[in-house]
């Protein structure tokens, strides 16, 4: 039987833990609100951009812009978007598991795979497994801004043009609601006609019936890189909002579990205490009885 003192210590330790998880939950909730507003505001623009571009990609000649080119797929790049911090439940675990699975699939088809990683957690995971990481960005979520998206989008577009890879996929957590995230694998390069995207698409129009102003080439030059920056930005925002949501849910669970532990241990503590008192009484009564 554990001593009363050690039980008391345990209870106070649980209480401290509960205080921390409760505070973390509050913080996550506040941050979630902010990042949720941002992603909801940014989504329409990004989705419009994507539908315009995927419409466009059906019509224009693929050789018109280096970023639209389809090459034989030998090298695949995967952009893995994880968080910088832990304690957010299965958030990072789901991502890395999905990514690793995807990598194996690609390798099984004889393609070489490169990794680009956003977030400290993903980097640590793949580094521990000594996988080769081509490029990494950490600490972007502390102060997420469009600059980061330009940085990441720029690096990826440059490498695509250079031929470092022929296709780019991104694995990230989509923010569905405060308590729900969905792991998404999405193809970014080359642009395809709206793949697995809900928006209704207008029937494809023949190439002739389309006007561009200014010329097609200038337009593509302006629009395509912009598109990737916008998409990168959206993905980062999605992931940030999802992270806070996941953390809030995880901390909520942790607070509840701590509460349960406190209750159980307190009950046990009281029982033990009573048992000790009873025992002592018995001793006294027994002693008094013997003196008679």
């Amino acid at each position: 039987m554990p001593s009363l003192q050690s039980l008391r210590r345990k209870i106070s330790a649980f209480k401290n833990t509960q205080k921390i998880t409760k505070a973390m939950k509050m913080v996550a909730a506040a941050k979630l609100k902010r990042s949720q507003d941002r992603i909801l505001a940014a989504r329409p623009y990004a989705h419009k951009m994507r539908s315009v571009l995927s419409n466009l990609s059906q019509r224009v000649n693929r050789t018109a812009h280096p970023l639209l080119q389809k090459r034989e797929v030998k090298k695949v790049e995967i952009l893995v978007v994880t968080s910088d911090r832990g304690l957010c439940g299965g958030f990072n675990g789901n991502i890395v598991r999905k990514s690793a699975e995807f990598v194996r699939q690609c390798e099984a088809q004889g393609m070489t795979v490169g990794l680009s990683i956003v977030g400290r957690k993903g980097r640590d995971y793949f580094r521990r497994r000594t996988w080769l990481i081509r490029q990494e960005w950490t600490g972007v979520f502390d102060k997420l801004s469009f600059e980061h998206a330009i940085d990441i989008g720029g690096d990826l577009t440059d490498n695509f043009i250079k031929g470092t890879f022929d296709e780019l996929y991104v694995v990230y957590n989509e923010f569905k609601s405060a308590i729900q995230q969905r792991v998404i694998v999405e193809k970014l390069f080359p642009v395809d006609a709206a793949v697995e995207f809900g928006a209704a698409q207008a029937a494809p129009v023949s190439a002739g019936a389309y006007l561009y102003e200014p010329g097609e080439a200038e337009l593509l030059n302006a629009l395509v890189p912009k598109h990737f920056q916008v998409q990168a930005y959206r993905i980062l925002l999605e992931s940030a909002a999802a992270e806070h949501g996941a953390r809030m849910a995880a901390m909520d669970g942790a607070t509840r579990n701590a509460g349960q532990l406190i209750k159980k241990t307190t009950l046990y503590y009281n029982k033990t205490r009573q048992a000790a008192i009873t025992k002592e009484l018995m001793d006294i009564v027994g002693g008094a009885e013997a003196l008679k």
Partner: protein
Amino acid sequence: MAGKILLEVVTPEKQLLSQQVDEVIAPGSEGEFGVLPGHCHFLSTLKIGELRYRVGDQTSHMAILWGYAEVTPTKVTVMAEIAEKAEDIDVERAAAKVEEAERRLQAGGLPSEVKEAQISLEKARLRKKIAERARKTGHA
């Protein structure tokens, strides 16, 4: 051709407008263009300018600062870097900005600074113009 067009204006910050309208006039980089229902497919970059749209005989104005417009027979999608509805623009602030930009332009300096001042002057003038017009027609 009867019918209406769906005008959608989005910026990176938010979706500003999604409305059925009769006519749209947008500031294309190669000149203004008007869109009526049944317009052919068209994709254009936008410069700093004024976007007008008409519902019935009611015309509304909006300031557009760069962006893209995609036109289909039933829909116009405007993706602007910055867009502001006329009634949301603060006239006094816009006027102050015009003055400030003019002063900066006069002060001169490096070519890049001058260019920046020119752009901000153009932006400020546009805002002021649109806001004033909206006020006259009684929108504000």
